[in-house]
């Protein structure tokens, strides 16, 4: 109760509103614990970054452990380790990028949330709107979160006896980055408009991905080299990045045991937040429209007139909208970028990476399809006036993500084969992957259609928590089932018997595994058939 009265009423109401997935029809359901459903929704969205954290943290931990050589050994008068020198810039860069990404997404959230204009006319403090938007944005920065959390988690694991302090430190570090992000967001919101902010967030997205792909290949060669020679070239960077003015330095020192630095971090974070609160109240949510491109139209008319009229207008429209939606770009890049990072760095064996890709790609093909449905929902009922059947439009929304993710899986397969030639047998997995992708897309669309009155004003919660979990369960279940059985079969055929299979006669093992695969295939086909029928029925109504 005391906690409740500490938080202003308007803020609590806003949070409640934004957390629950508004349902118009059955009002009884809303009353039955909006917070519970909100948290299941949060969990649903945080599961993906969680998976990455689980995969990435050991990678970084391993790396840090290898490089945990004291600088004193090389005659440098410093309490730090080689890993500290290498890590300090990584902390800075990932942290900074997380903040920037958060800022850009926040601006999009502020200007794209259909409720914002209305909320602004109500007697609600601007700062409340701003903070609630920030909390929603946090869910969308999954890439940034995974990076920062897994790096700092791996780092704090080096000092296992102070793990709880380490976790506290990580929380503070995240809060600090968020405060920084909010500050950047404020500046961005003041400087640029809605579309410009979207472009900015996409640019930052690409930057992060490039960095993620490149960074391990920059760091890993250090493994093989003589640390001393590397050190000399990095001593400059040590002086630069390990000076006490940097917030990440406070975190690193705190994780090493000097807990006083946590207080410093806390103080800075609190003052940043205070500053932001004050500023947010003066924030102008409708930036000046900049119509830079006001060219005369005639020129354009002639140009487009030369174009062929029958050139797949629906496909073109879908692709355009798709690649302008930052959320979808994330969904597309995510499943590819992390496996590539893991493969190039040779951190994990191919089976793990393949499975990781399968799980994430199938999950996201459903999410991409759902996001593409929102394009139409947002302008409803206008799409019903177009002289095309809605079904053909939906078909594209299913096939586009499937095709794109199959292409990604082919790219990955190429990489795998280049690394371990025996991965060539994974070719047989392409068909099941395509089918699971197809099924997940259908499922996403069906879930979306089933509740046409859903609240789409918030980009990051298009599906309800239970729906997200359902999609995730399907994707994880089929991926693990297929890949598990396939991997066992492949290993059995190439390398001979292993584990408990040794006790069975070989023909029965093959029969068993092949049987599982066929049963899964049959189940998948049946489920696809059922989803298609359900979608047809929903459309007829």
């Amino acid at each position, binding site marked *: 109760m005391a906690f409740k009265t500490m938080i202003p009423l308007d803020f609590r109401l806003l949070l409640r509103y934004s957390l629950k997935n508004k349902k118009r029809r059955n009002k009884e359901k809303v009353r039955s614990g909006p917070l519970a459903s909100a948290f299941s929704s949060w969990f649903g969205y945080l599961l993906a970054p969680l998976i990455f954290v689980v995969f990435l943290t050991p990678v970084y931990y391993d790396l840090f452990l290898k490089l945990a050589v004291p600088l004193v050994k090389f005659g440098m008068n410093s309490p730090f380790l080689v890993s500290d020198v290498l890590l300090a810039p990584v902390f800075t860069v990932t942290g900074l990028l997380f903040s920037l990404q958060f800022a850009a997404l926040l601006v999009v959230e502020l200007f794209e949330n259909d409720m914002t204009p209305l909320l602004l006319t109500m007697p609600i403090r601007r700062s409340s709107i701003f903070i609630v938007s920030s909390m929603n944005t946090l869910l969308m920065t999954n890439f940034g979160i995974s990076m920062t959390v897994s790096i700092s988690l791996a780092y704090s694991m080096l000092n296992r006896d102070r793990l709880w302090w380490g976790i506290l430190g990580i929380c503070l570090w995240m809060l600090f980055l968020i405060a920084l992000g909010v500050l950047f967001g404020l500046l961005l919101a003041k400087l640029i408009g809605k579309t410009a902010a979207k472009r900015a967030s996409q640019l930052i997205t690409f930057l992060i991905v490039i960095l993620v792909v490149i960074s391990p290949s920059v760091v890993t060669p250090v493994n093989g080299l003589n640390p001393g020679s590397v050190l000399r070239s990095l001593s400059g960077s040590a002086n630069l990045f390990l000076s006490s003015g940097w917030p990440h330095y406070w975190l690193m020192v705190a994780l090493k045991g000097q807990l006083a630095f946590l207080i410093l971090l806390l103080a800075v974070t609190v003052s940043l937040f205070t500053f932001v609160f004050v500023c947010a109240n003066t924030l102008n949510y409708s930036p000046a429209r900049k119509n830079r491109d*006001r060219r005369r*139209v*005639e020129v354009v008319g002639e140009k*487009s*007139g030369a174009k062929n009229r029958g050139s797949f207008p629906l496909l073109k429209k879908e692709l355009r909208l798709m690649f302008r939606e930052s959320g979808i770009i994330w969904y597309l890049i995510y499943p590819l970028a992390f496996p590539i990072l893991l493969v190039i760095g040779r951190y994990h064996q191919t089976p793990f990476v393949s499975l990781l890709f399968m799980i994430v790609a199938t999950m996201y093909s459903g999410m991409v399809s759902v996001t593409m449905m929102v394009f139409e929902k947002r302008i409803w009922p206008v799409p*019903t006036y177009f002289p095309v059947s809605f079904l053909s439009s939906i078909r594209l929304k299913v096939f586009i993500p499937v095709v794109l993710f199959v292409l990604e899986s082919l790219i990955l397969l190429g990489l795998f084969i280049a690394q371990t030639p025996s991965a060539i047998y994974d070719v047989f997995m392409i068909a099941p992957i395509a089918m699971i992708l197809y099924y997940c897309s259908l499922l996403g669309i069906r879930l979306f259609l089933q509740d046409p009155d859903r609240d789409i004003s918030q980009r990051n919660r298009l599906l309800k928590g239970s729906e997200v979990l359902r999609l995730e369960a399907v994707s994880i279940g089929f991926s693990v089932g297929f890949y598990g059985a396939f991997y066992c079969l492949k290993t059995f055929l190439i390398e001979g018997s292993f584990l408990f299979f040794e006790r069975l006669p070989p023909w029965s093992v093959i029969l068993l595994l092949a049987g599982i695969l066929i049963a899964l295939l049959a189940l998948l086909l049946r489920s696809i058939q059922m989803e298609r029928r359900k979608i047809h029925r929903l459309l007829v109504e």
Partner: protein
Amino acid sequence: MIIAKALTKKFGNLTAVDNLYLHVRSGEIYSFLGPNGAGKTTTIRMLTGSLSPTSGAIEIDRKRYEQDEITIKRGIGVVPDEPRMYENLKGIEFIEFVKGIYHLDPKLTDQRFNELCAAFDIDFLQTYIGDYSHGMKQKLMVISVLMRRPKVLFLDEPTVGLDARAARVLKTLLDHFRNEGSAILLTTHILEIAEKMSDRIGIIRNGKMVVEGSMEDLRKIGNNQANSLEDIFLDLTSKDASAG
């Protein structure tokens, strides 16, 4: 051209449109009037194939939605009550999309399109629709329909958001289309537009047609000395007026 027989739409236990008969001929502008929530938009959505009626029959240019949905939709033009368009497309890209899905002749359309852009003073097509004002969106929606020269036109409050000049241009164009033989059904709350432009007027209330006819007919029906459309409208749609 536009025929509706015993058209009815129920939302749960609310009857939004109740046994409505409608006939708009070619070369005619029909104004559909009624207080808020009377069922105008619902009627238009049914007539344009966007909402299926609970019961009743619709015929557009002698075709029915049950058999020729796509053909009908390709032939008609609809300006919906709210100008909703893909916000992440640029104006020009939306126009391109419309040209594509309606299989329009590029040369002919481009010529009309450029004329319309000049007439409506549109010079913002290179920017994203999401950055448009309400009126800019409405202008884009209107020209994306008019550039197709449809024989059957539905306009739901088309002048909302348009500036005085654009509204005038639209009225002139509709007049022109009517003279060329289009059937035009429009709803509006601006009675002056209905009075000046339309050949016939229908007033509905609670989903039922209250009165229908030309301005002369309405004057005769109206109580005592009511002579402006406003008087007639307020009279017929007031609470104590006998419905139907």
